[in-house]
Structures are given as structure tokens and as C-alpha cells.
């Protein structure tokens, strides 16, 4: 029996930021090694799903990588448009993380996110 928990209930930090004017990078960071491993092993954070989530082509996904030493996952996308120029919406790229918050991660029922949070 499985349930799902939104990523925001398992991670400690979910953020976006420019990596130079031509890339935007997203970090998902964990304080708990078990949760990190669980999200990694769930496979939900994969290039195909994330490209679809952000309506970009998979070739725009430049990094989609778990990094154990920091208990972190990093996604880096090509940034389109001209940073800080005509039509800019987010000069620092710091408010593009929203869609990641609600990615559903399968967990064994009952959801450990509810138990471990207490």
C-alpha cells in the first residue's frame, strides 16, 4: 500500500536562482539522509518529468543530479530571454521554485512525512 507526500514535506530547502544569465538552477536539500535517499530512489525527480513540469525541452535540462555530500538534488535549466532586460519577470530567478513544492513522492502508507514532522 502506498501514499504520496508533496516534496515540500520531505525537503528542508527548495529554491531557485540564476547560475549566470543563461541558466537557472534549482536546489532541493534535505537534513535527513533517509528522506534524501527515499526521494532519490523514488525516481520522481527525473529529467523527463521536470522538463515537462517547467514546459521546456529535455535538451534544456543541463543538470539533473543528486549529490550525497550535501544531501541535495540539483536541476539546472537553460534560461531563455535576456536576463534583466526587456520582458524580464524574475531578475534573480529566485521565485521559480513553486512547481517543485508539490511534486508528489510515493511513500509507504502511512506517510512518514506526517510522522517524522512531529
Amino acid at each position, binding site marked *: 500500500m502506498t501514499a504520496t507526500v508533496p516534496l515540500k514535506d520531505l525537503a528542508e530547502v527548495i529554491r531557485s536562482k540564476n547560475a549566470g544569465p543563461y541558466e537557472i538552477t534549482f*536546489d532541493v536539500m534535505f537534513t535527513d539522509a533517509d528522506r534524501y535517499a527515499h526521494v532519490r530512489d523514488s525516481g520522481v525527480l527525473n529529467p523527463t518529468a521536470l522538463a515537462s513540469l517547467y514546459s521546456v525541452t529535455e535538451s534544456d535540462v543541463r543538470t539533473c543530479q543528486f549529490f550525497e555530500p550535501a544531501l541535495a538534488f540539483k536541476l539546472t535549466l*537553460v534560461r531563455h530571454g535576456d536576463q534583466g532586460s526587456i520582458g524580464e519577470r524574475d531578475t534573480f530567478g529566485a521565485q521559480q521554485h513553486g512547481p517543485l513544492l508539490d511534486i508528489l513522492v510515493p511513500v509507504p502508507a502511512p506517510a512518514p512525512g506526517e510522522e517524522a514532522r512531529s
Partner: protein
Amino acid sequence: MSASLPIRIFTPQGMLGYGYDLADFHRTVEEGVDLIVVDSGSTDPGPYMLGLGKTLVTVESYARDLRPMLRAVADHRIPLVISSAGGAGTDEQVARMTDLVDRLADEEGLSLRVVTIGADMPADVVADRLARGLIEPNVRGELPSEKDVREATGLVAQMGAEPFLEILATGEPFDVIIAGRAYDPAPHAAFALHHGVEPGIAWHMGKILECGGACAEPKGGGVVATVYRDRFELSPSGPAQRCTPLSVAAHTLYEKSRPDLLPGPGGVLDVRACVYEAVDERTVRVRGSRFLPSDHPVLKVEGAAVVGHRAAFIGGIHDPVLIAQLDTFLERVERQAGQLHPELAGGTASLAFHVYGRNGVMGPLEPSTAVPHEVGILGEVTAESPELALAICTTVRIGCLHLSYPGQMATAGNMALPLNPMESPIGPVCAFTLYHLMDARDLDLFPVAHRQVGRIPAEEATR
């Protein structure tokens, strides 16, 4: 800088001019540090600083933050490095920062030996290297044109550690280095390298320190690195803050494309074998970082130019009938404005609506389809002249205010306008026209100059 290892490097804030806690600053300096480094620039705020020569904060903010640092330089003989001076690190911004340091030193009764490093790039050099295929496409696969190079109003390169190392190698004493555009970790790394620190440790320490206490919990303020040959230890300068293995590891991958390999001038920082250990409740030890040197020097060249002039208005819409048909309404406003201004219809001018409360932040990528009870509209018009931008912006604002729409009940006006005048010129709009890696073999860049600022020393005055 005759200190032997370990050396203690202090960065009191992540960005010069953003303010910092003076009690934390003075306590940290009293505890003993060998060097103060503060970053003053970034490309993150966009291209306007490079394109227009504007600074990131006002001169008053720079003066407020610099004055205690200059006093510490004089009272404790601690060298200070200001890098990427003024925001973009152009030669003009280096000169203005040097003038400010001169004025502050004079007001404080100090005499300081200042070394400046220029980072302006001659357009001829870049154009020549572009023609010879020595500039790499950016991550989008784009190369600049020769016109981009020639017409850039600001053109700089990010210096690596070398210019700082050359200054240190001369042994000539100095109090303040004011550097133009630099790779953010370069000054910290250079001082560590000069003292025999392993390159991986030196660059990793620089990468963490350049953002000040951003590596701490809660983030903010300053941070001190105690640097040994094969490791460094980080402690935040705020007593209520902590550096933890996770906070430092997390900051290592901040604003970088990859979490494991961090390329910069001179090579790649490899943090795959890195170990982060808690020394005590607020101090973290980092070791295991490696540096993979590149086989030839490569520099990142940054260029910006003015691409138009902008005017804008802000308004709010609360009427549910209009909100329900907002997209078609805004298309009609644009079409009508295009009939009055052929530049808009023809594409030499542009209009962008940012609809806050709906998708102002994410635009077409916004996943939410919820219907808001009110929206904010930022109308952004860009044209070839400030006058035309304002004229089109006025037409668009009037259209948003008065154009009729199906089912309209509120016939007196469509939009709540908070500002008066209701539309405003915003000024020139810039764009990065270069942000590219260039083969830097056989180039003599980053000129160094020495000068005395502030009060002339008594022995010289009486000589």
C-alpha cells in the same frame, strides 16, 4: 601579509553596501584576522550596472560600510580587498570607489596605500579573438557578433587569482586593493594560494566566503575562515548564527550549474571527495576539495549595451467580469495601441503585461489556473527613444483604463491607478551582449596601479 598558516580571512558581508552589524565586525577584528575581503559586484542584478555604469547601491551606502573597514585597516594593519568594485567592476567604477576611499581616508585622518586593478577589456582584443574562433559559445549555443563586441558600452573580464598573486609576489606593502571585475572567490583564493594553501582548499574557501554569512544559519552577516594548508574552518561573525556541515555543503552548490564540479578561471573546483565536519556547535571544518587546473588560461568576458528605453505603469483590476476575460482584453488593448503607434505593431517597440496575482512571476510556466479576486498589472513598454516609450505607454494605460469590453458593468474605468503621474519613464534598458569564455593565452590584462590616498604622511609632507 607576513602571516604564516593558518591565516584568518574575514568577509564581513556578502555585498559591499548592504550593511552589516558593527558590534560583530569590531569583535571579529579584535579577535584577530589577517585579511578582510568584500565583494562589491555581481551580474545577478542584471546588465544595467555594466551597460550604464551605475552602481549597485548609493555612494552613501558604500561610505557607511567602508568607513569602519578603513579604520580597521589603519588601526590593526589588516589589508582590505574590495573586488568587482561598484557592481560591474569597470575601470570607471574602480576609479569612483578609489575616490570614495580617498575621501573617507581623508575625513578619518588616515593615509592609505591603495592598489587598483583594472578589468576593462579592449574591444579590439575581444573582436580579434572572436574572429579567430577563440571565444566559446554560451550554454545556449550562442556566440556574440562583432557588432555586440564593438557596441558594448561596458566590456570587462572576470580576473582570476593571478593579478592578486602578482601584487603579493612583489612584496610591496599595501593597505587596500580595489579590483575591477573579478571571479567572486578569486581574491580570497589568491591570498590563501600565496601562503601555500592547497588550490582546492583555497578556491573552495573563496567560493564560500564571497557570500559572507550566506553559509550560516540563519544566513546573513559575516564569516571568518581559518585556513590551513589542507583544510579550512568557518565560523559566522554573528554570535547567534551557526555554520553546520549541511549549511556549508548547501552553500557550496549555491548558484552553480552543477553540485560537484565548479568551473572558474584557471580550472575546476572538484568537491566530490569533500568532507564537512562540525568542529563545535557553530564551526565547520572543510577538507578534501580538489582543484583540476585547466591547460590554458580562460577568462569570462562580460559585455552589455543599451537596447532601448522603457516606460511603465502599474494598475490594479478588481472587477470580476474583466478578470474573467483579461487575456482577450489585454490583446485588444495592445492591438488598439498598435494602430496608434506603428512602431508597436511593426516590432521596433514592444509591450509586455505582467499580471501579478495570476502569472506575473512565472509567465506561461505558471501551473496554477486559479481565478484571482484582483490582479496587479505592470505595463512595460520599450522603444527606441524615451519619448516614444512614454507615448506608447500612455496609450496603453489609457486603453487599459477605458476600453470597453463585453458584459461591462463598471463603465467609469477599468483599473485602479496608484501612481501619479500614472506612467513613468524608467530609463534605458540594457542587455548582456557578452557573457562568454575567451581563450586568454598571451594576453597582458588587468593593469595594476599604486597610489597613496587620504592624508599625506607627515614625513612626506615635510620632505
